[in-house]
């Protein structure tokens, strides 16, 4: 079971935004806070209408009504879920340790760290997180940058439409090793909705609907 607040970190293109949106919808969360000020495209903020339909409040850093205005600031509204124990929220960070840096301004508003999950999304087919050693290094960078401990892993091993069962298994093998070394759980294994026949052995199965990327991509 995830905690009240979830921070999602990971490499560029590891699947942070797709996973954030899917978890927010699936778990009927109150808030999705898009803190990606690194990447200009494929952000969860582009899905305001969808989130509205699901009664999820979107916090992002644009000029109101202009979702593409790329403003170099982070919305202070991101504090609200931290300060209000009755709401649940997921925070979608930008890529790499640089993307996690924005958390600094929020950390002081966290009253109880036990309310926060800081999850790292990993796809072993991303060359920067291909091996146990690379993943440990990545996690160390995120922890050094934020001074927060990563509390769990999300296995998003995939090669998009070309994903096979062997790939998922290989990803699980690597992430099990990381999980053992760091003593943190693999919370989810992601399976794309169009690949229903695939199975996972570790963590909860997260059937992923691709909302952020266009269907012709």
């Amino acid at each position: 079971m995830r905690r009240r607040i979830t921070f999602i970190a990971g490499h560029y293109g590891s699947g942070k935004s797709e996973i954030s949106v899917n978890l927010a919808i699936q778990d009927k969360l109150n808030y999705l806070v898009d803190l990606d000020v690194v990447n200009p495209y494929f952000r969860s903020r582009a899905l305001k209408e969808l989130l509205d339909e699901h009664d999820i409040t979107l916090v992002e850093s644009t000029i109101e009504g202009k979702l593409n205005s790329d403003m170099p600031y982070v919305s202070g509204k991101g504090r609200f879920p931290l300060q209000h124990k009755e709401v649940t929220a997921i925070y979608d960070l930008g890529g790499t340790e640089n993307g996690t840096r924005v958390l600094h301004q929020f950390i002081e508003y966290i009253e109880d760290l036990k309310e926060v999950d800081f999850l790292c999304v990993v796809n072993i087919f991303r060359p920067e997180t291909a091996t146990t050693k690379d993943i440990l290094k990545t996690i160390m960078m995120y922890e050094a940058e934020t001074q927060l401990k990563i509390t769990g892993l999300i296995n998003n091993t995939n090669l998009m439409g070309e994903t096979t069962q062997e790939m998922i298994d290989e990803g699980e093998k690597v992430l099990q090793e990381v999980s053992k070394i760091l003593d943190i759980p693999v919370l989810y294994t992601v399976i794309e909705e169009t690949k229903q026949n695939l199975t996972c052995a570790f963590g909860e199965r997260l059937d992923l609907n691709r909302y952020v990327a266009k269907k012709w991509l």
Partner: protein
Amino acid sequence: MGKVLMKGNEAMALAAIKGGCDAFFGYPITPQNELPEYLSKHMQANGRVFVQSESEVAAINMVYGAAGAGARVLTSSSSPGIALKQEGITYIAGAELPAVIINVMRGGPGLGGIQPSQGDYKQITRGGGNGDYYLYSLAPESLQEAVDLIKESFEIADYYRNPVMIAVDGLIGQMMEPVDFDHEVKKWDLKPKDWVADGDRKSHPKNIINSLYLDPTDLENHNLKLKKKYDDMKANHQRYEMINMENAEIAIVAFGSTSRIARTAIQLLKEQGVNCGILRPITIYPFPEKAFKELPKEVKDLVVVEMNTGQMIDDVKIATMGTHNIHFYGRVGGIVPEAEEIVDAVLKARGESNE
């Protein structure tokens, strides 16, 4: 290394390393920043040079210098940054130096926006700098194709001693796709670089890298020599792909990301009983005029689809010499056309010609 999942900008960066790029000089700009970011980590690790210069103008002149010394050199930028580099690019072409330039296009004119665009078509194919020169310009539609073409582009640049432009839009830079970096690419017949100004006076005589020819006869001869290269590109190295052209009754002309969306559009059209082909230029200079001669006789209407206001139409008109009806559909400002919009444009063009 097998297939890996890459973000476009990272994939293009790694492709450059695989293509033997010795040195990168560049200045950051969205939406291509992951490209220099990746190289800043990986060039040095591979024994190569990475410099983040103080400006785009500095970067392109560093490219000029390193290329003159015989290195395989890369610079990358996005539209306004490429505009700044135009002076350096014409000098590089004038001095007959090889270099690869990646333009991850965003909306213009001026500072424009940061969302995808194909608005630099004219600048790329007509030359934004002064004088009679052209860039061999490749417009891939997928990350795999971008990787393969970038690896080969260093060969092409060396072969012609001329800059090669990789023209992609922000979508290609930002999207994720599985890529195999070990595809074999064409090796060109390269001569030793005996023209380099590398300080070596033992193995070759003193060389001068220059684009200044004060004597008109010399400059005319130089221009004619350059023209031979461009004529050879046109005659022998046009690249294109004909998609679903058998039995086609109408065709889309589109390059890069737009042709990718057109691929979805022709599936939707097939469901409605319309057989639509795609003529996809892979080189936008030289423009693939030969492809138009291969169009089936039944195809009388061509729908040009671009993320600009119709910059490629002139080339399509020149290639078809009045034999076809030319229609156009475009989106600008960073808005990417949806497949359904392209379907409507094709149906409209088809309706008009049936009236």
